[in-house]
C-alpha cells in the first residue's frame, strides 16, 4: 500500500509542524538551570538517525551503502551513549539542600 509520494510528503510536513509547536512549548518550560542537560539530551535523541543508518546497514553482503550505514551506526552510537550518560552525570549533580551530604573528598 504505497501512498502517493506527494501525500506522504504532506503527512510528513503536518507531523513536522505539529512537532515544532510541541517542541516550542516543551522547551520553553525547561528551567534555565538545566539548559546544559537539555543540550545533552537533545544531542542524544537527535542521534535517532541511527534508525536510518541501521536500515542502510541491514541487507546482507557488503556494498558502499552498507559501509556508509555501518559508519552511521557507529557515529550515532557514540552520541547516544555519550549524550545520555553525560546528561545523567550532569543531572545527578543537581541536588536539593536537604539531600546535601557533608562528605569531604
Amino acid at each position: 500500500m504505497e501512498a502517493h509520494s506527494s501525500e506522504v510528503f504532506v503527512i510528513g510536513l503536518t507531523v513536522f509542524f505539529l512537532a515544532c509547536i510541541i517542541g516550542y512549548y516543551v522547551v520553553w518550560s525547561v528551567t534555565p538551570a538545566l539548559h546544559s542537560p537539555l543540550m545533552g539530551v537533545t544531542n542524544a535523541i537527535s542521534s535517532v538517525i541511527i534508525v536510518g543508518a541501521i536500515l542502510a546497514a541491514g541487507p546482507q553482503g557488503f556494498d558502499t551503502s552498507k559501509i556508509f550505514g555501518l559508519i552511521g551506526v557507529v557515529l550515532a552510537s557514540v552520541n547516544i551513549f555519550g549524550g545520555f550518560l553525560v546528561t545523567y552525570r550532569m543531572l545527578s549533580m543537581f541536588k536539593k539542600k536537604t539531600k546535601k551530604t557533608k562528605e569531604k573528598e
Partner: protein
Amino acid sequence: MSSNMVAILYLISALLFIFALRGLSHPETSRMGNIFGVIGMIIAVFTTLMFKSVLSYYEIGAAILIGGAIGSFIALRIEMTALPQLVAAFHSLVGLAAVFVAAAAFYDPVAFSIGKVGSIKTASLVEMSIGTFIGAITFSGSVLAFGKLQGTISGKPIVFKFQHLINALIFLLIIFLIVLFVINQSPTIFWTIVIVSILLGFLVVIPIGGADMPVVVSMLNSYSGWAACGIGFTLSNNLLIITGALVGASGAILSYIMSKGMNRSIINVVLGGFGGEQDTSASKDNSDKIVKQGNAEDAAYIMKNADSVIIVPGYGMAVAQAQHALREMGDILKKEGIEVRYAIHPVAGRMPGHMNVLLAEANVPYEEVLELDEINHDFPMTEVSFVIGANDVTNPAAKTDESSPIFGMPILDVEKSQSVLFVKRSMATGYSGVDNELFYRDNTTMLFGDAKKMCEDIVKSLSA
C-alpha cells in the same frame, strides 16, 4: 512486524522523547526524563532491527558496541569544565552521521524504498540533499566550534573582506548544485555538495568569537535537529521528523535566549566579528583612575562582616576550576550565618546553563543558584557582591552608555550592592573589549589573581 505496528512503536518512542524534554522543567523530574529518553531510544533501535530487510545483526551489533564504548568512555571521563567542547564534538557526529545516512540512501535507494539507483524520486532527492547540506554544515561548524572552545584554534573572531558576500555566493552555489543533483543524480555532484557545505560550515563559524560561543553551540544544536528532520523526510520516517523538530526547536530557542541575554539579534551574532579588537573610545582616560586593590584577608574581612553575599560567577571561574573552592568559601560564610546566593547571567560561560552545572558539580544546592530575573532586585539589599571571573555581565555601561557596544544588554546589578569584590586575573577588559567603570568605584575592591587560588586563600583567612 506490520507497518502499523512499526508506526505505533515509533510513535511511543517519539512520545517518550517529548517526555524526556518535559522532565527537564524541574531538577526533581529531570532524571526520570532522561530515563524516558533512553527507553525511547531502545524502542526505536529494536523496532528498526525487526525490519524484514535488516539481517546483518552481527555487523550492526558490533557497530553499536564500538560506538557505544567510545561514547561511554568519553562521557564518563570528561571534566565538567570541558562540557561545551564535548557538546560541540557530539553535534559534529550527528551532522556526519546524517551525511552518511543520506549517502547510503543515495547509493542504495531500494533499501529505503525511495526508488532505484539513477531513478530516485525527485522529492526524495531534494530532501536527501537538504539533509546532506545541513548535516555537513553541522559537522564542520561543530568541529571548528570544538577547536575554538578547546583552545586548539584561537577563540578570536577571524574576519576578512567580503566574508558575508563569499558565504552568500557559496550558499547560492549549493542551491545550484542541489538543482543539478536532482536533475542528473550524479554521485560526483552529491560529494561536491558535501564538500562545499563542509567549507561553508567552517566559514560560518570562523568569524564568531569566544564569548559568543553559547549562541553558536545552541545554533549547531538546532542544525543537528534539522539535519535529522531532513533525513526523516527522505525516509518518510515520522520518528525522525518529530525528534528532529524537537531538537531543532530546542536549539533555536536556546540561541534566542542567549542572544537576548546579550541584547543582540541572532543575525548580529551569526555575522560575527564582535569583540576581540580593543575598543579605543572606551579606554579613554581610565589610566589615571584609581583602583582599590585588596587581598584575600581583606575580602574575608568584608564578607565576614556582611549579612548577605551574592556570588556572580563567570567563565573565569570555569577556566580556573574554582567552583569547589568557591563552594567551600560559601559554606564557611553560611556557617557564620551569612546568606549566600549565586546569581547566574544567561550568557555566563560558554554554553547555556554552563555555570549551573559547574556549581552543581561542586555540590551547591540548586535552590541557592538564581537566574538574573529572580535575583536582580535583591542587589540593593545585599551587602557584598562577589564577582568571580565575570566582567561584561556586570558592566553598568550597558545601561548608561549608549555608545557602548554592550548597551542594552541586561546586566546583574552588582553596582547596587553596598560593596563589590572583583576576582580577576588582571585589569584586562572583558570579551566585549569595553572597560568596566565599576572597577574604579570607591566601594569596589579588586582581588587580582587566579580565581581558585583566591578562593582558597579566602577560605584560609575565614577559618583562621
